């Protein structure tokens, strides 16, 4: 516990004062150092403020266009592009230069990248890490919104982007600590302007303006009790105002963490970052019909007259895709390395034993593969991969391509070793494609 004899005020009783302090954030900086604009390269505090400013501008842009009730699609697309520019920055993916588009320089993501690009692991690295992830998600939804033709589709993508942006900006969690950029600015040394007076946050301010920090956390901000306007770090998330010695001290949400650390004299647990609900996205799972009934009668797995389900051209395209996307785990020879075999005797006997149908295998490929990025290929790409797998397993080619969507008949096609001789079949039972 911080041990001092100041008079404590309950938040409810000083709400007017809090409002005054927050409203004062446009006033002069606490710092007595040179103006921020002169610094080059920007310090950490400025980088964080710049990133936050870009995030806010992007949110404003999206909210503004939503309130415009425009019927012109281009107006919405322009707002999304503007927001992407602000987030991604001039070197980021998705940035587009244009006469009526902003060039924000590094952009919100670029600024966070610069902040995180260091060997050390400052206290604020974790919340910024979180902001970065949410910003990347927001950009991806904004890119979706650029493709929207109907207003409803646009709003679906843009509102998801806004939700991610709000998390990246920071919002209160159940523990009262802000997450995201605002949380990092309010509760860590990131909120301290360069050159400002910093003292150990375990103690109390002897002068004001000053910042009390400890182990990378910002425990309090002190401003003189006299007349005048004083700036505070972004969205302080303050929990308590204490007055005394001619100083007004605003304790941050991190103050309790710091007081615990002062007793322990060790480093701190990072503050809880936003753990609120993540947001939905526009992925629609594909559930196969009738495939649930498996495992019965594996004895009849291999078809006497195996159906021709794909074209040779398709299988060749699938072979190229397999080499770049699948071979790393399933092996160039399809016999598996980290992952299982997907063709030949081992695969087909397992398929027969477990009663796998074509519907099942297609379902697994389309929904679960590649393992680190399921469903990331196009339906056409998945179809050509299925063609390559069938060809490698010695199923015959035909005139009709393997379809992009599943077919009810697939649930009745049981996979297993294909009878007969197959020119080009190797010792592992894999047929050559091409």
């Amino acid at each position, binding site marked *: 516990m911080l041990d001092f004899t100041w008079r404590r005020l309950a938040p409810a009783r000083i709400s007017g004062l809090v409002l005054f302090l927050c409203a004062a954030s446009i006033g002069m900086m606490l710092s007595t150092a040179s103006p921020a604009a002169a610094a080059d390269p920007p310090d950490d505090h400025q980088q964080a403020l710049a990133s936050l400013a870009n995030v806010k501008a992007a949110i404003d842009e999206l909210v503004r266009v939503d309130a415009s009730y425009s019927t012109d699609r281009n107006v919405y697309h322009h707002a999304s592009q503007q927001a992407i520019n602000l987030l991604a920055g001039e070197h980021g993916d998705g940035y587009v230069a244009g006469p009526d588009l902003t060039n924000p320089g590094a952009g919100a993501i670029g600024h966070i990248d610069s902040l995180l690009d260091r060997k050390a692991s400052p206290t604020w690295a974790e919340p910024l*890490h979180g902001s970065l992830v949410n910003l990347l998600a927001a950009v991806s939804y904004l890119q979706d919104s650029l493709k929207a033709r109907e207003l409803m589709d646009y709003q679906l993508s843009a509102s998801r982007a806004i939700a991610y942006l709000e998390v990246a900006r920071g919002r209160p969690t159940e523990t009262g600590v802000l997450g995201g950029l605002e949380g990092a600015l309010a509760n860590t040394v990131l909120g301290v302007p360069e050159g400002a007076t910093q003292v150990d946050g375990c103690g109390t301010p002897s002068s004001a303006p000053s910042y009390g920090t400890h182990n990378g956390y910002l425990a309090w901000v002190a401003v003189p009790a006299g007349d005048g306007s004083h700036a505070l770090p972004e969205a302080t998330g303050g929990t308590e105002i204490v007055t005394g010695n001619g100083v007004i001290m605003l304790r941050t949400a991190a103050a309790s963490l710091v007081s615990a650390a002062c007793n322990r004299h*060790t480093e701190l647990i990072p503050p809880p970052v936003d753990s609120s*609900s993540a947001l*939905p996205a*526009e992925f629609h799972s594909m*559930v196969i019909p009738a*495939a649930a009934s498996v495992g019965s009668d594996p004895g009849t797995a291999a078809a006497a007259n195996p159906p021709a389900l794909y074209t040779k051209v398709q299988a060749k395209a699938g072979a190229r895709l397999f080499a770049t996307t699948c071979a790393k785990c399933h092996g160039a020879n399809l016999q598996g*390395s*980290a992952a299982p075999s997907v063709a030949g005797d*081992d695969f087909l006997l397992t398929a027969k034993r477990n009663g796998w149908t074509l519907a099942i295998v297609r379902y697994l490929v389309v929904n679960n593969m590649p393992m680190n990025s399921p469903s990331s290929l196009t339906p056409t790409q998945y179809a050509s991969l299925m063609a390559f797998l069938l060809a490698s397993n010695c199923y015959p080619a035909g005139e009709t391509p393997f379809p992009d969507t599943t077919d009810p008949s697939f649930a009745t096609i049981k996979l297993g070793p294909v009878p007969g001789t197959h020119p080009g079949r190797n010792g592992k039972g894999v047929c050559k494609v091409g």
Partner: protein
Amino acid sequence: MLRDQLLGRPACLIPAAMGFAVALGLAAGSAHAQSTPSPQDFLDAAKDATNWILPAKSYSGNHYTTAAQITPANVRGLKPAWKFQVDDSGPMEVSPIVYNGTMYVTSAHDHIYALDAATGKLKWQFKDSPHVISFAANRGIALLDGNVYIGTLDGHLIALNAQTGKTVWDKVTVDDIANSFYTMAPVPYHDPGTNQDMLLMGVSNGDWGGIGNISAYDPKDGHVIWRWETVPGPGQPGHDSWAGDSWKRGCAATWGGVTLDPAAHMMYLNLGNPCPDFLGTVRKGDNLYSDSMVALDISGKSPTLKWYHQFIPHDTHDWDPPMQPVLFTGKVGNDSRQLVATGDKAGNFWILDAGTGALVDHTVTSFQKGTHTEPTIEGNIACPNTLGGIEYQGGAFDPATNAFYVPSQNECGRWTAQKDAVYIAGQFYLGGGFPKLVGPNTGQMNAIDVSTGVFNWRHNFDLPNYGGALVTESGVLFSGNLGGQENAFDTKTGKLLWSYDTGGYIQAPSEAYQVNGKEFVVVASGAAGNATIPELPKTGGKQAMITAFTLK
């Protein structure tokens, strides 16, 4: 060469001689003293600086060695003593076993290599080519009664002669070969009550719709002595934590390791995620004993549950606690307490009271997000993903600093649930897809004050740090980074003292041993397997390799 002489003999003589020796009971220990450790050796393993005879050094699970020749002052002089190229593909996840100058390592497809621990020279090799259900991986062997034992990817338990590598017996010991297999090392144990030797091993079926179990197998022939299932059936306490029939494919596999307190006849186990992994609506309830640590009394004919501590009730993100529990005596405030520590893939580090399972400390080691939100059909983001948090390679407690050393990862993922979960024999039973990687993937090495649960120091890496933690009595901490660097830190300050690029991706724990009085450190490296992330080079696989270091 001894090897040639033995290989020249008729193969049938060896198992016959084996059977005879085992029949003599107590004499068996001395008859095989040269090739495998005795029950007393296993009990004394923690204080043996020379051999490394259990997966995590001793029954306590603590990767702590009394070997002390390598110190913070001289570790900079550590150089590769030898390298051994493994002729198998897939990731290397092995905890090598070292006994009397021989090192036994395994590779992803259940190959076993017996090496001269001083030179890396191959003594014998066993090659299996099992059917792989999903992930090719093996984490090591057991030495007992003159044999080497391995659990395989197709559900076999195989005994090999420790001196020759010849198969003694081979038995399918899983209940359902379609969804069950082995990746963990069997753990040798001598039950003093019944004078029975046994191999303790959990089954991997925790993403494939089985029910997990820990079993004791007879090293003579592989028959099951007892089997304890991890999901309570009808009529058992905890059964009502599963809606309807969902318990039947509830998973809760145990694959991370077995911790024992032989004096108290207690076993500490972590049980894995519930199934289907990502669809909670079909298995409403807390889903016991998934994502829990259980303390089992093994003094009787079969284990009885003494306590359990569930870390994540009703997990929907495959956030199981894969780290082997570590049993130790640590200081909490002014009290010296019997504690048990572990970590989970959600990025939580837990310290519990070993006697009661009560929570002592909880430390968040990884960036967490969306931990209370189930995956949706539309998809949503949560952190860590299934490769993040604290993984299976284990940690170490150092009595000198009263600190616990364990690595962790920051990774995020976008999950998607499906409308329903469909059980397909021999395939994942997920009710969704494994998460798409989102954002950067990084790692940390953590030193956590046991007294407070607060970090003494953290070291940040650009890449995940799966290499576990090995602490030496001399105050050096070893751990491998996914990028391939084997690193040494000062346990007190966290200062990086030494680093060596093995040329492969590391996701195996480090170990220390001695041959002829000289200390070595060993680590396996190889392909990234399912730990592949966009930050790793796209080109080519990595040669699987064992690298041993010593002071030159």
